[in-house]
């Protein structure tokens, strides 16, 4: 920033002042994350990948531990381990492993190993809850750039591949016969998931990333009639839940991640009650 030049421009002043407010930064972080979790969450719901999301998210804790131990950026560690986990799960699924059991084993093992590993890293034990439940109120400008960058990347990737992803989600043979490669589309989703996990860790924490993917999309289902509107409404619900959860966290001093997810769950309950009525 050109802060050294007197007199500072008005817009610059306003922008600086805005981003200086930790509440604004936290709100922007939640909204940014929703850009990616909305459309990706829709695919997670349609393809029944909920547990897959859990396994990838829980692996992030292991990534945090390894990054801290190796003195690497935490974002890099989580991205690498999440990607490794996602690729492992996708490979095992393609080889016909029983997914329910495999994912159950991998998800919880990753979490357990991550928690054990992180206890060895000096000085982290005290703020472990920040990694598990998110620390949205402590989001810095750098974090904000990281979150918006990652989320925009995922959103752009999904928009680019939208039609192919949707066809492959409907039926892989149908996609194949249309000249698409369902394996490539699955890989796109795996990559997107790893990026979202790395980005969401700061906002909602490792335990509830999958909830942030599934709940807004599931809430949007009852209110929409096309795949595109479901993804868009999921973005809106995610953003609203982030802001409301942030308010709750601030007001009640509750952990940020669970507060956001709780707000999303309330929206889901409302849509489950009123959605069918509206459609009838």
């Amino acid at each position: 920033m050109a802060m050294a030049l007197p007199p500072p421009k008005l817009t610059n002043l306003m922008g600086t002042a805005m981003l200086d407010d930790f509440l604004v930064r936290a709100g922007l972080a939640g909204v940014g994350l929703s850009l990616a979790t909305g459309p990706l969450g829709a695919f997670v719901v349609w393809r029944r990948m909920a547990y897959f999301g859990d396994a990838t998210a829980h692996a992030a804790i292991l990534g945090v531990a390894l990054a801290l131990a190796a003195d690497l950026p935490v974002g890099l560690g989580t991205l690498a381990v999440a990607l490794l986990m996602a690729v492992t799960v996708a490979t095992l699924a393609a080889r016909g492993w029983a997914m329910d059991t495999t994912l159950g084993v991998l998800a919880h093992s990753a979490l357990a190993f991550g928690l054990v590993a992180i206890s060895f890293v000096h000085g982290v034990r005290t703020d472990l809850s920040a990694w598990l439940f998110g620390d949205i109120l402590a989001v810095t400008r750098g974090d904000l750039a990281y979150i918006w960058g990652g989320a925009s990347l995922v959103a752009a990737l999904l928009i680019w591949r939208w039609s192919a992803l949707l066809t492959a989600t409907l039926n892989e043979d149908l996609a194949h016969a249309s000249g698409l490669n369902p394996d490539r589309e699955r890989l796109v989703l795996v990559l997107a998931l790893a990026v979202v996990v790395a980005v969401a860790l700061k906002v909602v924490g490792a335990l509830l990333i999958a909830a942030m993917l599934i709940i807004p999309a599931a809430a949007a289902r009852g209110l929409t009639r096309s795949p595109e509107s479901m993804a868009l409404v999921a973005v809106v619900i995610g953003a609203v839940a982030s802001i409301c959860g942030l308010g709750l966290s601030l007001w009640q001093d509750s952990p940020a991640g669970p507060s956001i997810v709780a707000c999303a769950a309330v929206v889901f309950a409302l849509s489950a009650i009123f959605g069918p009525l509206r459609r009838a």
Partner: protein
Amino acid sequence: MSLIAADHACVRFGGTEVLHDISLRVEPGEIVTVIGPNGSGKSTLLRALLGITPLAAGRVSRRPGVRIGYVPQRLQIDRTLPMTARRFLSLPRRHAPEASAAALARVGVPEVAERQMTDLSGGQFQRVLLARALLTEPDLLILDEPTQGLDQPGEAAFYRLIEEVRRDTGCAVLMVSHDLHVVMSASDRVICLNGHICCEGTPRVVSNAPEYRALFGLGTQGALALYQHVHDHDHTHDHDHTHDHGHDHGHGHGSAAPKADKSDGHGHA
């Protein structure tokens, strides 16, 4: 030139050979039906022709630029995925609303455009699948058991629709079925499959071939009577088509010569 051709194609799953030495071709404008018992490799054959399942040996060739419309065997749309019939028709490539409406009208379900795919009846769903395949203006339609889950009149109506589509557009049709009744009357050529091609020819020739009768456990009279019976009448009769085919309608046709088994002396797997 044939639209699509297989030459000595073999498919293996693990160590098991599910398709052995398959050679077939589909010419422009003809309706070819592949019949065979469960597990005979019918769907695998279509998937191999479409390039979904890799070949262990042999080759599949297509006429350059041939457009293929595909209707898969089962399409389960997850209830969590909201999708109107009109939106479904535009996957993966967008079509103009007029073209989509015309395709739905062509297959006899113009009213379903704005309805959710998961709310359609079995017959409507299959027709929307067919409409989607037709929107690509195919030279060849490939259908994998398109009437699965339809009742007898629905099945007959669907095959009539296929014949109409062929007449109107001139496209060839390659379909798989395990229904013997209606298929026989609606096909130009029937290929009887059981891991290999047992016999092939016109419906009458195939239904008379000993390989076909052995495969489906039918007597000469039963198979022919069935064929004639369905062919001669509209399909809305109340006759109960159980699958033992034990009934005898007394149509005696012994004139068609059985076709020689093209599949060498190789035994059934």
